[in-house]
């Protein structure tokens, strides 16, 4: 099979054609070799998405078309339902009284439960897209190795003899060893399930969405992994997916892989790298500090409780894990103009001072036209992200609607919002979304196509912030600021639904 197999079906907005849409998805599921259950789940999700488009995207009597696009890769079958109609309302259902019906957003609930990954994308005047993905069933590492090859690492083991290690880019044959290492360290609790599938690791590296470095022992065994993640192939990458075999620890392999990846990043033309070390212990924050990264944000409640850390923690987490956001420039960055909300200006300027990016402050302005945004629910992580790529007159309403749907229907425990700092209309939008309960989270350098973002967050779960640990004095100050902002917006929240 080719790296990606694609097919497109265009249909009139006629409910009688739903069976044709289902047949198309079933055939693509067969191409992707999905198990029957997974195939039917995706067929259901696609049917609900198509029904939504037909019933709600167009004016009554309007004769239009919508499109299904299918893409099969080694990782997943992705179905996109695209139309050029009215904006999304995940919970919209003309048959229903939202205040009384316990089955609010039934179709959207089925979509969320049936697909592995769901993205609602508003392309502005280009229309909107609902993208559904179902992971392909190629055997994970537990089906490819014997049980004795998958035994969990134990705390007290003899160290491997001193030796020379090599650090290099991952080759396809290394993928299974990486998956094995992840499994032996974390069991089946690592939130990024791609790392349990050698085929996915290989495919992601071949498409540059993952840039993996491996540490190799003298006997040729892969004993460590560290990677740059670039899901959108943008100018920055996230470092992570790090693991080192316990019998080879204490030999600076993590540091060496990190330095290797920074050089790879520079060679690729990346502007910077970011990481999100946890706050339940200080170790990974100290590692980031030693690499010359700087604090630029805090993300509360990012990681599910089920994530278990070897060596640093031996018990399940008491609450969702929070992370610091660290950033390191890989290239000189030019002076930029940003439009911060007035009440956050001081903190934002201090963040930019920390990360070494010179800024000019612009005056906020009035917006015109429709906005663009992208909403995504990360099911295995239990959180959602809303990215506004263009601030428009409808942005506040759309964000409010998305927040309500994500909390009430999808059950998201936390929602992270990225607003473009380079757009003059953003300050007013920030004030409006804070009235819904979003509070300050920091700055995302180059997190948006047109530049940096102001990061905001909404928590639908309890968090005891006294459990968070920060190693950097500015990080501690930022945590106190975030905590105060959380309290402040809680007094002004309009929405009671989340």
């Amino acid at each position: 099979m080719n790296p990606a197999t694609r097919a497109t079906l265009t249909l009139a907005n006629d409910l009688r054609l739903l069976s044709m849409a289902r047949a198309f998805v079933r055939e693509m599921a067969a191409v992707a070799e999905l198990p029957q259950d997974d195939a039917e789940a995706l067929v259901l999700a696609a049917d609900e998405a198509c029904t939504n488009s037909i019933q709600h995207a167009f004016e009554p009597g309007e004769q239009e078309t919508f499109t299904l696009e299918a893409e099969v890769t080694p990782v997943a079958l992705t179905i996109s339902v695209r139309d050029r109609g009215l904006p999304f309302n995940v919970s919209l259902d003309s048959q229903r009284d939202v205040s009384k019906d316990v089955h609010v957003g039934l179709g959207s609930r089925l979509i969320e439960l049936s697909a592995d990954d769901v993205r609602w994308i508003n392309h502005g005047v280009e229309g909107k897209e609902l993208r559904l993905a179902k992971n392909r069933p190629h055997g994970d590492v537990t089906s490819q190795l014997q049980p004795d090859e998958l035994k969990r690492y134990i705390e007290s083991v003899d160290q491997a003899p001193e030796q020379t290690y090599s650090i290099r880019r991952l080759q396809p044959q290394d993928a299974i060893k990486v998956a094995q290492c992840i499994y032996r360290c974390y069991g089946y609790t690592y939130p990024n399930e791609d790392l349990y599938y050698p085929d996915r690791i290989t495919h992601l590296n071949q498409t540059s969405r993952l840039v993996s470095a491996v540490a190799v022992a003298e006997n040729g065994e892969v004993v460590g992994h560290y990677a740059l993640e670039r899901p959108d192939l943008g100018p920055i990458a996230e470092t992570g997916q790090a693991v080192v075999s316990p019998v080879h620890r204490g030999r600076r392999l993590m540091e060496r892989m990190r330095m290797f990846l920074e050089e790879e990043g520079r060679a690729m033309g990346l502007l910077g790298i970011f990481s999100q070390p946890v706050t339940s212990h200080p170790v990974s924050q100290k590692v980031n500090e030693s690499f010359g990264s700087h604090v630029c944000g805090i993300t509360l409640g990012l990681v599910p409780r089920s994530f278990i850390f070897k060596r640093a923690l031996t018990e399940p987490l008491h609450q969702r894990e929070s992370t610091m956001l660290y950033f390191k420039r890989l290239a000189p960055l030019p002076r930029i103009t940003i439009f911060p909300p007035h009440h956050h200006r001081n903190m934002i300027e201090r963040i930019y001072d920390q990360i070494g990016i010179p800024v000019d402050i612009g005056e906020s302005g009035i917006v015109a036209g429709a906005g663009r945004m992208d909403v995504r629910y990360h099911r295995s992580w239990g959180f959602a992200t809303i990215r506004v790529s263009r601030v428009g007159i409808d942005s506040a309403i759309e964000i409010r609607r998305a927040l309500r749907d994500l909390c009430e229907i999808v059950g998201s425990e936390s929602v992270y919002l990225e607003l473009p700092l380079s757009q003059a209309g953003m300050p007013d939008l920030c004030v409006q979304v804070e009235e819904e309960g979003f509070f300050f989270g920091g700055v995302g350098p180059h997190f948006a196509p047109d530049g940096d973002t102001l990061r905001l967050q909404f928590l639908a779960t309890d968090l005891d912030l006294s459990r968070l640990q920060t190693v950097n004095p500015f990080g501690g100050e930022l945590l106190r600021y975030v905590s105060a902002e959380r309290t402040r917006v809680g007094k002004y929240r309009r929405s009671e639904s989340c």
Partner: protein
Amino acid sequence: MKISASHHPGGFGLLDVVGELDAFTSEDLASALKEWIAKEAGRVILNFTEVTFLSSAGLRVLQKAQKDSRAIGGEVRVFGVSGHVAKVFAIVGFDRLIPIFPTLQEALHDWASPKGTNPA
């Protein structure tokens, strides 16, 4: 999608549903349920043995039918649900709203009791 409806000697309407229940075909089911709920004082049993697809549209039709049936002292019951259709009922909790039975006999036997035994 096809629906065959008849009066059962046990004193209820029996609707045999065959095919896929989506936003288009569910309209026919809604019409049939409306008719037979009125005819049989709200007592209707649906045969889902040959239903191969069920979307939220179908679920909403069943939800409304159950509400209308119970309002006049009756009940809508379903038997023969299997495969992915059974999963759809379960994942959104509709198996608590609509009594589901493995067979027609069991649906009849339990008619006097307000709840059925719902298969996984």
